[in-house]
């Protein structure tokens, strides 16, 4: 059977739920169209935006950069990138090199910022301390702090991240199962920050399945860091991801329906949000925080204590 769009013989992928079979050219252009359509549909980018991509060098952020560079070429946006060096020996350096190569190739401003430089400790050093929390807990808090701070410093008006459909579905299920309705409310293609010191975050790949992201970068021959984070196995996210992947084998549309269903209940969830707190600035670092100390500073203090004991 040939490509269902153009009739070419070289079919590289099949969408089991729709019976669509695509050649590389039709697959690549279809994905690009879908992402650009979602950007318009959810109002993720406006003309003149300075968009900073959180670029790890992995498949998701490389694909995102590739598609957003078409908007830069058309003079719609200014593109820039940041890479976070968490300090994970034998893992992060390869990704940084690849991120640097892409930024150089596209001629965009790119910064590499590290946990060590800003928080005076690497993720490896954190995990070597006695009784640490899960690696993803520290990493998530420090990474968000660092990405937002760097985005402001670079003059970004949007932060684009490479979260894909699998990531979004995992977040929905994780927060639902943990009863974390507060976090559930925040899931979606763009953030609506309560402080103007928080730069708006957008997820243009939120409706693209992870496997199709992988197919895209391989089909386009993009240089990508294919490797798993050594700390990811410990996470609850990884457990949920495994369950959803297994379910998807016999129910190939389950991630789409989870996301669609979530969009429907999100409106109700927002209405239920009666809390009316004000954002202030963290007394230590000055970043926006609902508490006296932001979570990054709470963790820094906690880690200092662990270091001295």
């Amino acid at each position: 059977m040939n490509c269902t769009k153009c009739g070419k013989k070289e079919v590289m992928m099949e969408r089991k739920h729709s019976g669509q079979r695509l050649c590389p050219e039709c697959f690549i252009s279809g994905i690009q169209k879908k992402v650009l359509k979602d950007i318009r549909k959810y109002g993720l980018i406006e003309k003149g935006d300075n968009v900073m991509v959180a670029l790890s060098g992995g498949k998701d952020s490389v694909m995102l950069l590739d598609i957003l560079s078409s908007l830069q070429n058309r003079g719609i946006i200014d593109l820039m990138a940041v890479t976070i060096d968490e300090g994970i020996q034998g893992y992060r350096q390869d990704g940084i090199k690849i991120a640097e190569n892409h930024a150089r190739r596209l001629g965009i401003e790119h910064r590499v910022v590290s946990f060590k430089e800003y928080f005076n400790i690497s993720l490896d050093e954190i995990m070597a301390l006695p009784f640490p929390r899960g690696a993803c807990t520290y990493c998530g808090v420090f990474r968000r702090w660092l990405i937002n701070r760097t985005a402001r410093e670079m003059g970004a008006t949007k932060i684009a991240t490479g979260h894909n459909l699998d990531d979004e579905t995992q977040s929905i299920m994780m927060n639902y199962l943990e009863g974390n309705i507060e976090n559930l409310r925040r899931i979606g293609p763009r953030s609506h920050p309560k402080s103007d010191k928080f730069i708006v975050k957008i997820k243009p790949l939120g409706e693209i399945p992870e496997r199709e992201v992988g197919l895209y970068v391989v089909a386009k021959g993009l240089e990508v860091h294919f490797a798993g984070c050594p700390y990811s196995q410990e996470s609850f996210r990884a457990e949920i991801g495994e369950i959803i992947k297994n379910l998807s084998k016999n129910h190939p549309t389950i991630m789409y329906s989870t996301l669609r269903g979530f969009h429907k209940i999100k409106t109700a969830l927002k209405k239920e949000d009666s809390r009316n707190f004000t954002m202030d600035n963290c007394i230590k670092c000055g970043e926006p925080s609902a508490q006296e100390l932001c979570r990054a500073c709470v963790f820094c203090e906690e880690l200092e204590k662990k270091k001295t004991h």
Partner: protein
Amino acid sequence: MKFTLINNKKTEQLSFKNNLTIKELLDQIEKPLETVVIKKNGQIVLEDEIIQEGDTIEVIQIIYGG
């Protein structure tokens, strides 16, 4: 039937029965289909593709745990 397998950057020559499909090969090397992209002689192919004598099959892992 002999072919070349590139898996995890390791290259090896394998001998298998005729008409082996990509799906059967992945079962043999215990790689779940949904985590990999397969190239046959440099072209991405589907799981039902039949491996021929002298082919080069590359298994690219695109999804890792977590």
